[in-house]
């Protein structure tokens, strides 16, 4: 619901994407977000790195300026890259080809990322469990993030 439309709407369950360059920082999305998962850039990014430390910045991700609201992108740059590779090789994406940075770095392997529309993917088998739930489901926001609670499978 951003007034300057940095948020790209979509009718099917997907990642809520934002175009950070268009964000003017009304902070309205935080009010609309029942999960409170938006983050505001209070400060300008510290970019005065001594070479070669600037190389630690991810070349696929824009540096967001001060005054912009941001949220998790589900590492959309990784998804785009893998999708482009698959298209170039004229094949479909395989399960497990893409993973998010948080899932990759999680030592306890808590997070699974994959295609919910593919019934055989790792994530689909995981959430077939009766232990699955979604946050604030009653609001009808159809979140695509599933959790598994404790108890028997």
């Amino acid at each position, binding site marked *: 619901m951003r*007034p300057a*439309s940095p948020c790209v709407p979509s009718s099917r369950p997907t990642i809520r994407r934002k175009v950070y360059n*268009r964000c003017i*920082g*009304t902070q309205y999305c935080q*009010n609309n977000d029942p999960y409170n998962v*938006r983050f505001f850039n209070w400060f300008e990014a510290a970019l005065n790195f001594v070479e070669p430390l600037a190389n630690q910045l991810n070349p696929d991700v824009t540096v967001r300026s001060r005054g912009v609201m941001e949220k998790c992108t589900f590492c959309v740059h990784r998804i785009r890259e893998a999708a482009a590779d698959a298209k170039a090789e004229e094949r479909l994406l395989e399960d497990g080809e893409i993973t998010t940075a948080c899932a990759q770095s999680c030592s306890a392997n808590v997070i699974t990322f994959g295609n919910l529309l593919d019934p055989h993917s790792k994530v689909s088998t995981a959430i077939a469990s009766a232990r699955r739930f979604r946050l604030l489901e009653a609001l009808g926001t159809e979140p695509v993030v599933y959790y598994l609670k404790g108890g028997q499978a």
Partner: protein
Amino acid sequence: MKLHPPLVHGDDKINRDILRPLFETSWRWWALFGLCLTGFGAGFVTWMWMLGAGMWVTGLHRPVMWGVFIANFVFWVGLSHSGTLISAILRLAKADWRRPITRAAEAMTVFTVLMAAQFPLIHLGRTWFFYYIIPYVNQREMWGNFRSPLAWDLMAILTYLSGSLIYLYLPTVPDFAIARDYATTPVRKKLFTMLALGWRGTRKEWHRMNLAILMLAVLVLPVAVSVHTIVSWDFAMALAPQWHTTIFGPYFVLGAIYSGMALVVTLTVLIRWAFKWEDYITPFHLDKLSKIMLVAAILWTYLWCGDYLITWYGRLPEEKVILDIKNGGAYFWHQLTMMLANTIVAIPMLAFKKVRTSPWALLFLTVFINVGMWLERYLIAVPTLVQKGPAYTWTTYSPTWVELMMSIYPFAGFVMLYVLFVKMAPFISIWEIREDRVAEAYKTMGQAKLRAIVAE
């Protein structure tokens, strides 16, 4: 100072009384202007400093992203409402008692909207890109998001601002012509000649102006109602507890009329005292204004209770936690003061004619009402954000000195523009007063005593 003798403008005493502030400036005016300029300047410097430093200097933090700035915005948009109400509704209803008050009320509308319109900009994270919201054809192929209430807000407020500006200027043209003919110094003569647009007072001119005012009154009314409804949608369209309610539209409009009426009365009392216009603004006018205020107070209380009752009776857990902090938690005193100011004290006091006709009691009461209305806006914006969503994100909010400065800023700015306007235009509509006196006069025809002019 010596004024030119009246040429064709009839009642010399009215003209001189009302034009006096235009030509004579006392040290008190300079003192007030200086004070307001200081406050406005300090607020402006704070704003510019905040633009450079970043929003972290405010008390805002996730998830409380809307705080005092938005409360101020809603408050000032609300204040702007009654200028149009008094002027347009009463003009259409041919309520003649509105005449000495319309100009002051219309000017109030314009200046309060000007102050309100700055707050969405003040609170933007990237103010320098504010124009991204404006729908215009550009090489970046960008277009605002019309599904966002904030985009509607922009359009509504700009429409209202331009509409009320014309609505203020148009009926002032004949008065500018009077000021032009009375002006002595060449600078003033030139200024008022320019503002009077060559007004000569021919029959055709009067006819066209009356028609234009009538049309504008009809056009500006729905805009006035829609502006505050749209401001309420900023909240009501969000999926947040206590905001997501259909009552917000009428509730906001009534709250706006209520606080606006209170400000009109405050200003009327002060103007009457400052310029010694007791002959023009009488307790009769204050009584009428206060009656509208009383109706607004009762309706506002009714809608507030309606909203409260449904939330309380519904007992949704998400809404109840917010109700609880208003009823007994961090916002208890805010809510109590608001209820005292807007309902418990205001309604019984306004019920007495003695209060309604006593300027100083009204001054105290209306300022108190507006303190309550400011708290009401604060109570709408903040408690919801403090405890909305998953409980691990709940927090508190305390404004910093930046928010304090930015709350002084519109007050100082509004009073500054208002006192500048005193020097720019006759503050009571001279021609409308005179029209009224002519219409009120009686003529004898044979044995019958008839009104000189029968209203259409």
